[in-house]
């Protein structure tokens, strides 16, 4: 199978994720979209590792997973805390910094 197809999938996933981050209001959904973008990047890494016959891209993918796991922990904690205090998980409501 042509390796370029994996890159198309990766680009598609990334675009879906990016659009989701920009257009959705629910913090959880935005969060999932961020995860989608990370995974799209991972897919691209692995694909390039395969194409170039090098192991560097695969190692990079592991790093990305670790970072993503950490991010999930911190991010979810923040979202939950905001939800508790404001009874809302909308990212538009959390705009106190503008003044």
């Amino acid at each position, binding site marked *: 199978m042509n390796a370029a197809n994996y890159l198309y999938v990766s680009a598609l996933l990334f675009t879906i994720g990016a659009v989701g*981050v920009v257009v959705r209001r629910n913090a959880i959904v*935005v969060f999932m979209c961020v995860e989608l973008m990370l995974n799209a990047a991972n897919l691209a890494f692995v694909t390039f590792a395969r194409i170039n016959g090098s192991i560097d891209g695969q190692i990079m993918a592991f790093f990305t997973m670790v970072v993503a796991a950490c991010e999930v922990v911190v991010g979810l904690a923040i979202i939950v805390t905001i939800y508790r205090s404001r009874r809302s998980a909308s*990212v538009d409501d*959390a*705009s106190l910094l503008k003044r």
Partner: protein
Amino acid sequence: MQINNGLVYLIALPLAGAIILLLAGRLADKWGHIFATLMSASSFAVGLLQLSQMLARPAEERAVEQKLFEWISVGSFQVDAGLLLDQLSICFVLLITGVGTLIHIYSISYMSHDKDRRRFFAYLNLFIAAMLLLVLGNSFLNLYVGWEGVGLASYLLIGFWNQKPAYATASKKAFIMNRVGDMGLSFAIMIAFASLGTVSFSGVKEAVPQASTASLTAIGIMLLVAAVGKSAQFPLQAWLGDAMAGPTPVSALIHAATMVTAGVYLITRSNFIFDAAPTAQLLVVIVGAITLLFGAIIGTAKDDIKKALAASTMSQIGYMILGAGLGPVGYAFAIMHLITHGFFKAGMFLGAGSVMHGMDDEVNMRKYGNLRKFMPITFVTFGLGYLAILGVPPFAGFYSKDMIIETAFNAGGIKGILLGSAALLGAGLTAFYMTRVMILTFTGTPRWDEKADPHESPILMWLPMVILAIGSVTSGFLLSRGDALVHWLEPLFAEHGEHEELLKPIVVTSLALLMVAIGVAIAFLKYSRSEVSRTAPEDVSILTKIVRRDLLQDDFNEALFMRPGQALTSTLVKTDEIVIDGAVRGIGSAALSSAGALRASQTGFVRSYAALILIGAVALVAAIWVVTK
């Protein structure tokens, strides 16, 4: 040159007096005046001791030096703080400490009602110390320290009653106008160092023959500027009249007998420079001749007794400067007139103080009259000073002033005739205004205010006046007997050849006496035969009005210096406000408004930030793609 380590005591004693009195404060109120007088008197005693030692030595070994400490030592520039006592300085030392001590004694009584008498005496001692440093310094730089010191003492004493704003202004005026002269002195020192490489009197004297005429002329002119400022000569003369705001003993000591003659000392001390710079010397005589007439003319219209005497001082110092500008032949006569003037003018000022003492501090002569009946001692001592300043033989002024007039005539050519005529005319004017002072004050009918209570002053006041009057009578005769002073000072000055005489001495003397007689006669006709009004008449000619305004000296200074100066400063202030402040404030407000505009872009919406990041990232990638393709 001989070393004498006793010179420092001349200065140290009055300086210690000043420091102790200023530091002790109110603790010294009870004994401060006596202490200060003792300090001044002991300095006088040291001076007499030095004189007796000096007389014991042969003429060429009379000068003594004392090195105090190494003052400035930078590369090839070496200045020691050192003192020099020679035939010229000893005259000044004795005049300063002698007249100074008499005035200290006078002030004990004159200032007895003033709560700040101690401070007054501290300043007087400070002045004596500074003036002695001025005449004892062995280099121009040491002289400069004393020069500034007397300026400070003069400022403090003119403004002694600074609770009156006019008096405080007068002291500032004196100080500022003196600064102009002081700048001249500092320039002279700088030029001397730059072109001659030394600033000590002996060093400069040795360097003069090799120096260029241009630099010597520059030094000479700058020294003249200094002398003009300190000695209230034209065109820096305007401060002296206002300086009469100070207590009368101050006017007698500082603004008649000693400090204002420092310019004459400076020129005489720098004789080797002026002898080698004819242009500067010519300027000196011009300044002297102008001032002696200027002062005399102002004196004719003054109703304030102290200001009349101040104008007279200005005029008499003009004579001295004229004498000093005539070269080696005139220096000794300038110093002789300086000494005799020190006696008679200090005596007359003290007399004026005595009159004011009895007249409730009234200074307007139009409110005096007939005081000779009430103040006989003051009348007699003032009268002797009057005869001395007129130059009536055998009083002191006759010997000194006559010699200057004669020397001026002998200066040669048209210059001699002009200078001699100016000096003669000045003698006539002097006779007129001094006779006017005498008539208005001591004769005629009383025109007193109700509060006036004319009475003779206490002994502490009249005793110094009597001693100074004796000096006014005898000093001229004693100093000129066998040319005593001329021979005494001879080693200091260059040799001078015999001048051809334009007029015989007897002719000059007769002419001078004739001018004096005319001046006295006019004054008698004008003031003695008719009643003097208590207020100055208003229906007078424009010339009188100009003279009353001191020949427009203040208007001139205001128009030429003060107003342009004010315009300049206000322009600078405006520039500062508009340009400098404007730039600073503009930067501030520009930052503020642009920040306000930029703030609008910060919405606080997470999604818009995310979109911006996305757009940015896409743009970045696109840019890289375009560039690398």
